[in-house]
């Protein structure tokens, strides 16, 4: 009796092996369920904080949408944007700049934003031993932004440094600016004295101040920026309009009088959610293009 191997030429056996291997490979594939809604948020704070903030929200959304909702944690702003553009995430909580990126790359749609997001601000902080008293003093000191893709931690502070304070971050600091990666990390860097000054999101600053997350003797507020538009819940392109409308309504209908929904609002740092429009982000897009961060 002829064996399989004696019947075939070597190259035929190789191909046979590849075909068998390939079919095994594809049969082992696990299919992603379509009725799961995947949401994420830019990692502007540490993951335990984000998980605490988002769990009640996920529960609320599951109830409202009647589908399973999973929160996918990411550690990088860019990863959140690319996952949304690639359709790996359905809804994402993005900053102004990351939303503009997602819109530019894959036509993301803005849904809802918090009341405070329409008049958001950045704060400029300094270590108390640095000798920084007024915003002009940042010149010649070391300075930390948040993530490179952050609106309130990088884009807008950079814009105001250039336009209002005439400080070029690439030339006028003691060394090239440091990118801490997140707002609370910026505070930690300035508190440790490794970096003398920094800029971050006012909401995170206020909360860290209230919860005494850092030593107030070591870090002080130097300057608060003018207002701009920031965070927004965005949907990827290609979702069914009913689902998008349901998701948007879930936010707009959050009612402070219902205890569970009040908890969601409080954790999100909002009194109420309002509808967001594409045109809200045109000014951010212009700033992003002017500073060269959006190409």
């Amino acid at each position, binding site marked *: 009796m002829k064996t399989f191997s004696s019947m075939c030429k*070597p190259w035929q056996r190789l191909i046979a092996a590849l075909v068998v291997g390939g079919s095994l490979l594809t049969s082992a*594939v696990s299919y*992603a369920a379509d009725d799961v809604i995947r949401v994420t948020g830019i990692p502007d704070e540490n993951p335990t904080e984000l998980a605490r903030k988002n769990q009640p929200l996920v529960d609320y959304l599951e109830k409202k949408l009647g589908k399973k909702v999973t929160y996918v944690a990411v550690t990088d702003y860019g990863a959140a944007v690319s996952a949304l553009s690639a359709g790996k995430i359905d809804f994402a909580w993005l900053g102004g700049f990351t939303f503009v990126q997602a819109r530019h790359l894959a036509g993301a749609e803005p849904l809802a934003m918090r009341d405070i997001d329409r008049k958001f601000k950045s704060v400029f902080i300094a270590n108390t031993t640095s000798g920084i008293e007024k915003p002009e003093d940042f010149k010649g000191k070391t300075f930390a932004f948040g993530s490179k893709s952050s609106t309130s931690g990088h884009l807008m502070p950079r814009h105001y440094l250039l336009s209002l304070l005439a400080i070029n971050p690439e030339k006028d600091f003691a060394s090239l600016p440091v990118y801490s990666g997140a707002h609370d990390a910026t505070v*930690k860097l300035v508190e440790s*004295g490794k970096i003398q000054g920094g800029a971050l999101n006012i909401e995170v600053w206020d909360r860290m101040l209230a919860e005494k997350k850092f030593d107030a003797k070591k870090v002080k507020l130097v300057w608060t920026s003018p207002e701009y538009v920031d965070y927004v819940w965005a949907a990827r392109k290609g979702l069914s309009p009913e689902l998008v409308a349901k998701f948007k309504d879930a936010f707009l209908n959050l009612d402070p009088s219902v205890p569970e929904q009040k908890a969601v609002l409080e954790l999100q740092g909002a009194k109420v959610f309002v509808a967001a429009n594409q045109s809200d982000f045109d000014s951010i897009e212009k700033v992003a293009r002017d500073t060269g961060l959006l190409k």
Partner: protein
Amino acid sequence: MSEFNRKQELKRYLVWFVVGLTFVLAMEGTHVNPGALFDRDGIRNAGELLSGLLSPNLSPDFLHRIFLLSFESLFVGILGTVFAVVIGIGLAMFAIRIPELPDPPGRQGRRQSFVVATARTVSRFTLGFFRSIPEIVWAYLFVQILGLGPGAAVLAIGLTVGGSIGKLYAELAEAVDRQIIGGLRAAGVGRWGILMHGILPQVKRQWVAYALFRMECNIRTGTILGVVGAGGLGSEIALSIRYLEFDKLATTLIAVLMFVIALEWVSAYLRRHPVKWSLLFAAVGGIASFAYLDIPWMDLLTGNWSNLPGTTEFDLSAEFLGKTATLVWQTLLMAWIATLLAAVFAFFLAPLSTRSLVTGSYLSQTYGKRGLSLWMSRLLQSGSQFFLQVTRAMPELTLALVFVVWVGPGALAGILAIAVHNIGVLGRLYTDVYEEVEPGPAKAMQASGASGLSTWLYAVLPQVSPRVLAFTLYRFEVNVRATATVGFVGAGGIGDSLYTSISLFHISDLVVLLVVMVAVVTLVDQVGDRMRKRILNGPSCEPPLAQRLANLFSRTSGAPLTSPMTSDIPKLEVAQLCCRCGAAPAFSVIRPVSLSSQGLTFISDKFLPTGLMVQLVVVYPDGKLSSVISARACPAVSPAHSIDSKTIKNYLSFIEPAPDFLSAMIVIAQRDAAYFIDDSECSTHEKNARGNASISSQLDSTIA
């Protein structure tokens, strides 16, 4: 000391001086300030890091999390290696130029050979392309298709490592024994048949060994790719450093260390056992990884490839290109500094961790260390082995994150990270080289009472130095690629721009940067390949151009050519000719005087008894050994001249004067003739004439 000797010496010092100078210039070029390691801030940062690292976070929640993530990293490494091997072998099969396979004649043959040649070029280019792009860039691109999670890391490792595995596999396959292939060819076996039956059986052990070695590296890589959202321990490392939580960092690093070391045991075990065990391990590991890692593989086929951002406009302005050139230059300088730093440390640590150099002795009946000093040596040995182990287990990116905290972001952090990791890698490679040293010369020296240090300097180092140099150059090539990645965490070089262009979606910049990087990496590889070949094979054995022209001229004029066998006065280096007489070296201080096809005259410290059987081994300058040949000792050549122990001449007559053995000795002798013989008494010609004369007379008398 002769004039030529001094010139050689001077040249060697000049080379070291130039290497040192490039180090200083490169330090200037990158504007780094090593003082940042130990200035006020540096010491404080180091203290914070250290105190955190000494008190790891052992809360059950965190440990549970780290445990799960460790497994994810482990499986990413295993599955990535399986992919890499599949990709590597798949492409290598086409990239191999089979030796002894002339293209078949005829019209159809021409078409076939054209197809084969095209496939070879394409697959070689693909391998080079995969290899030149760092894992972390691939990972970022695959996040677009597979989404967040370990799938991107698996594919990234598969591609980058597949490229380098494929290249090495093809090189190994081209270096196989040609006789077998010639036989198959003569029997009319085609290309695939030769690959399957002529080449594969010869290389499979080497292939498996290298795959296992790469798997260790891949699991380390798997622990860090999480930085870009590709699963595993990486995100935990990045976060613990971002929030200055060094206790968590300590736990994570200990986890990395533990399973990397455990894996090293597994792979050492597999390397000692038949290939099928490794295949079984790969199969089981691959299936387990498939089951454990939840990766949406179908997305690779059905996924939206159009999601990959495209671009048609490229920024080719002089400003951007100038900036890119500066970054590339900085990257090269950083890699060079780091390699030199690591080489210096590894050079001194490797002998300390080599068993035979520290605790043991090359002699079988040891007169070496005993008692306390033996234990001290053992302690020193395990200490340096542990240090090399730990530094090797830490991936460059992890170290870069740590050094960014210590000295702040910038080129210095990157240099230190690459240097520290490479101390471990180079130390391991150097140690392996040291362990493979031919013990003969060292035995001879130790038998004559030489100390450990001088044994190392004169008997071991000359054997290993070419391979040590070659490995250092090889690591420089690898480090150029590694330096391009440390920028992802803010440690300088071109990686910083790569990261910016990726995270801000500046696709056109990314394309330009990647093209430049692939070009630079390919160039460095090519130059490195040539230099390594030159170092390992020694200077070309062909005579210089003038000599060749002269030969040509003399040939045309009909003058007889001199055969190497009759060359008159080859001289042998002490450490490179080693003699074994029975169990222990019977004599030492060998100073060769002359060599002919009949025998060898040399000076030793005592008379050899007549008729003693001696084994001769030739150690090539690159440390390889030639075959052993037996020789019979004859009485001293001229007892009248052998008054003190330094001038006792002995003569060994070859029993089987194998031609290749002799020519190898002659080549060595000629190459090293310049500076190992120090004979001020008489000119070489006189001595040679005398030596030959006495040999023949001696031979006559022996035969009589």
